[in-house]
């Protein structure tokens, strides 16, 4: 594999794993959302997002000559390149037993990530890696609805009861403490931008901060510090036990029968 391809692979892992783990967390909400109509809407977004992961995994499949499901369902946690924020559980409890899922955290994580995802896709539109340009253009078509959906939830919860405002602010602080892990491109970031695969990390971050400031000004909220990376850098293979647990669940059936050739 050429050096260029090695760097492409690193970036593809970030893009695929971000979307995969994020949609996995979304899928745990299915049937448990605050309102039946919202349950249906939210599930579409989780499906779209998993579809985006699948598009990126297919690019990896071509590059690595390893099947999509082997890449997505049978890698060690340290081989994942998603941001740690996206692997964090939705709340205490699991999806089968008394889940105490946090809707405020879900709204904030989804909106903030989707704003970044949008910026990243725009940059990928000019990537030197042609297959990525095509993938980005396809994925962008579904972003409009996702952003509209999460913005509606964000504005309304930020402008309603005191309790909701306080829960939302707590969620913003929590997401903020680790959003740096989403914004980073990891240890190969410099090479990614040198090879014109994606815009430099600093530029993506600046654009994201601009858009977030705009959003905050509309709901009368400010935050001074830069987003942190308290739990580590997932782009470099650092992860929490939340990812280990998630991978055990999501691959339970896939790895349960070594002889199985199909499911």
């Amino acid at each position, binding site marked *: 594999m050429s050096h260029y391809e090695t760097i492409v692979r690193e970036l593809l892992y970030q893009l695929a794993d971000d979307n995969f783990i994020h949609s996995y967390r979304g899928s745990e909400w*299915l*049937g448990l959302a*605050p*309102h039946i109509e919202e349950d249906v809407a939210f*599930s579409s977004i989780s499906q779209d997002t998993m579809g985006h992961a699948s598009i990126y995994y297919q690019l990896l499949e071509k590059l690595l000559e390893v099947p999509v499901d082997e890449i997505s*369902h049978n890698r060690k946690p340290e081989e994942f390149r998603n941001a740690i924020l996206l692997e964090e559980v939705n709340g205490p409890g699991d999806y089968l037993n008394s889940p105490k899922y946090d809707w405020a955290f879900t709204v904030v994580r989804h909106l903030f990530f989707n704003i970044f995802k949008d910026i990243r896709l725009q940059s990928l539109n000019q990537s030197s890696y042609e297959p990525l340009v095509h993938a980005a253009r396809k994925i962008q078509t579904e972003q409009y609805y996702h952003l509209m959906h999460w913005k509606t939830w964000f504005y*309304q919860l930020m402008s*309603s009861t005191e*309790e909701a405002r306080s829960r939302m602010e707590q969620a913003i602080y929590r997401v903020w403490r680790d959003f740096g892990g989403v914004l980073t491109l990891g240890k190969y970031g410099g090479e990614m931008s040198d090879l014109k695969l994606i815009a430099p990390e600093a530029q993506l971050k600046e654009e994201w901060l601009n858009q977030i400031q705009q959003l905050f000004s509309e709901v009368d909220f400010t935050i001074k510090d830069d987003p942190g990376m308290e739990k580590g850098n997932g782009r470099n293979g650092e992860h929490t036990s939340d990812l280990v647990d998630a991978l055990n669940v999501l691959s339970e059936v896939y790895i349960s*029968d070594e002889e199985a050739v199909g499911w």
Partner: protein
Amino acid sequence: MEVIHYRELTDEEKYEHFMERIENDEKIEAGDWMPDEYRKALIKLISSHGASEIMGALPEKEWVPKAPTIDRKLSIMAKVQDEMGHGQLLLRVAEDLLKPMGKNREDLLQDLFSKKLKFHNVFHMPSPTWADAAIIAWLVDGAAILTQTMLLKTSYGPYGRALKRICQEESFHAKHGESLVLALASGTEKQKQMLQESLNRWWEPLLMFFGPKSTKDIGHSSVDINMKYKIRFKTNEELRQEFLTKYVEKIQLLGLTIPDETICFDEEKQEWIYQQPDWKKFKQVVSGNGPRSDARISLRRDSYDESEWVREALSDYKNKNQSLVG
């Protein structure tokens, strides 16, 4: 035809006019006058149909994060999402019927939590393996398609319209289920065994799904009332026979064994002979005492309670918004 002035009619005349409409196969709409018996029968049928969809999402939901591949994760998510969507359609129909009684969705959900609102026996049962997701999608949905298709011509307009949407989506569920079952049936010994064990678990609940043959089995039945008002058109047994005709051969073709040695088609009587399920157990299960009833109801109730603040917040947001607009 002369114009009917409802205010001037006696209850008897209203009833007569109503039955005339039923006989003429007219569709009844939400705001129409209807006998209490009709409204109650509809509420009972449609709200428990809706609750069954919402609760029916849960056994398969258990397998959503665990589905073996990305494609399976996507299709089972879409399938469970549809169940929630069908719940939405049906609860809307039930809610409009309950409105004159001052009730709304909140009341329906509370009735579900307190076991007052019943749902199908099958959704009280455990789904311990991936093969259960396959059997549910293929056979439970297969059974549901037969019931729902029969209800399409129902005399209640809004129910018929909801069912039309539902039946369109059920054809996707059938394909999804078939695809899962075919993959396992043509897989390894371990996969085949998992499928067989799941069929063994689900066979009796599947026969129960259509309800007892006669009222003797559980002591009461709303089938007669529903037939009188053309809410439904077939008996439980007719539907069960249709199910057996449609699936027994297919199940055997896959190399699976139906856990009933007596099952056979009686050519003379032109009907299936089968081992009667335990109707006492059925009654117990649907009253909320099945193996997974409490766990699933708690899951639904806990998640509902956990997000109470969200519903309160949005009610408040709307109020603010309205006062701004004036």
